[in-house]
C-alpha cells in the first residue's frame, strides 16, 4: 500500500473489523453496521445499544474488479459485493474463497478473517472481514 495509514484509525476499528461489533437502536430495533451513535430514524428518541452481528448474510449485488486499487494487484479479478446481513444492514465488502463466475445474487455468505492491506513491507498489516460462501451450516 502506498500510504502510511494512521495507526490510531486502524486500531479504533479493530472491534468492528475483527469481530463485527456494532450498535442498534432499541427504540426502533434497527441494526447498524458500521456502528452509529445516533439513530437517523428515531433522532431525539434514539436509544443506542451495542450488538455484534452474526456475520451471516447474502449477496445483494456485486461487481468484478479487473483494475485493482494499489495493494490488491495480486488478487484480480476479485469481487466487491453489497452484502445484506441477517440483521438488516447492508455493507460493501470483498468476497473471498470464490471465483467471480460462481458468485450469484442471493448467495448466502459469512464473514471470514483475512488480510485486508499492509503498510509497505515494514508497516502494520491490517486484518478484517471479507465474505465467503457458507461452507456448511454451523449450529
Amino acid at each position: 500500500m502506498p500510504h502510511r495509514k494512521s495507526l490510531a484509525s486502524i486500531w479504533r476499528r479493530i472491534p468492528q473489523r475483527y469481530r463485527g461489533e456494532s450498535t442498534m437502536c432499541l427504540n426502533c430495533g434497527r441494526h447498524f453496521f458500521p456502528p452509529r451513535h445516533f439513530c437517523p430514524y428515531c433522532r431525539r428518541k434514539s436509544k443506542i445499544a451495542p450488538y455484534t452481528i452474526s456475520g451471516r448474510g447474502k449477496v445483494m449485488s456485486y461487481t468484478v474488479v479487473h483494475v485493482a486499487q494499489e495493494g490488491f494487484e495480486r488478487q484480480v479479478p476479485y469481487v466487491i459485493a453489497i452484502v445484506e446481513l441477517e440483521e438488516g444492514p447492508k455493507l460493501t465488502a470483498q468476497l473471498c474463497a470464490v471465483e467471480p463466475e460462481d458468485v450469484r445474487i442471493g448467495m448466502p455468505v459469512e464473514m471470514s478473517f483475512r488480510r485486508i492491506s499492509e503498510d509497505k513491507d515494514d508497516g502494520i498489516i491490517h486484518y478484517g472481514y471479507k465474505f465467503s460462501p457458507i461452507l456448511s451450516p454451523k449450529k
Partner: protein
Amino acid sequence: MAGIVGYGAYIPRYRIKVEEIAKVWGKDANSIKKGLNIQEKSVPAVDEDTITIATEAARNALSYAGIDPQGIGAVYVGSESHPYAVKPSAATVAEAINATPVMTAADYEFACKAGTAAIQTCMAMVDSNMVRYGLAIGADTSQGRPGDALEYTAAAGGAAYIIGKEDTIANIEATYSFTTDTPDFWRRAGQEYPRHGARFTGEPAYFKHVRSATEGLLEKGGYSLDEFDYVVFHQPNGKFPIRLAKRMGIPLEKLKVGLLTPMIGNTYSGATPLGLAAVLDIAKPGEMILATSFGSGAGSDSFAIRVTENIHKNERPVQMYASRTKYLSYGEYAKHRRKIRM
C-alpha cells in the same frame, strides 16, 4: 485432568500438484510422488497468513466447544511463519475471537512442533488452575525455496485446541517430550527460506525423536501400542510416518485417518494438530489416540488421548476442508507465495 474441550481445523482451498512444480524444475514428477508419497499441497490465498488461518481454526473450535471466549485465559499460537518478527500473532487471534483482554498470550516457535508445545503449556495452566481454558493453535504458511525438495511439501493449514477440565471431549492422559540439539533444518533470522540437512533430517532427527518420545510415553503411561485405535505421527512427507509405523509394528490402518500430507502437504506446525483433528472427527467414546509431533532442531511431543462420551459431530470436519480444492499453475502459485516481487 486436562483435556480437549473443543477443536477446529482450517485449510486454505488452493492446491498445487507435484506435476506442476516438477515441470518447472525439470524433475520427474512420478519419482517425487513415489519418493515423498505426496500428490499435491495446499497453498494460502494472497490474503491468508498464519494469523488468519489460526483465527478461522479458533473460531471453529469455539463453535464446536460452545464456550464463552471470555473464559479463555491463555492463547498460544505455534508457527514458524508468524507474519511479524515482533508483534504477537496470538494477540490478533485472541482479539478476533473476543478472548481479550484479561488473558495471557504468546507466540511459539519450534519448527513443526510449536502447536503441540502450546497444547502442553495449556494443559499445565489448566491443571494448575491458572486458567479455566487455554487455546493452543498450530498454524503455518510454510516456506520452500524455489527448486528445493521442500517446495513439493511446504503447505498451509492449522488446527486449534481449547484445553480445559470441564466437559472434555477427549482427555489427555499423558504427555512425554524428547528434545536434543540436532541441526536438521533451520532458517536464520532475516532469511526468507529455510535450509535443511537433506538425508540428515531422517534417522538422527525425525525417526530418533518421534520414536523416543512415543516409546517414552508408552513406558511412562504404562500403555502398550495395541491399546491405541489411532496413531498420528508428524508428517513432513507421506513416507516418514509410514516407515516409522512399519518399524514399530503399528498397523497402517491406525495411521491412515490422521495421515493428511499426501493430499494437503506438510502444514508444519499445523500437521500433527490437523492429523489429530481428522481422527477426532470420526473417533468414538472410549477410543484411544496416540499423537506424536516432531519439530526440527529437534524435538517431539507425544500424547495419549482417550475420547470421552462428550464427543459430538464436527460441523466443519478436516475432510470438508481437505476436499475443497482450487488448483493453481506454478505461475499463480509463485504470485500467491510472493515469489514474484511487484
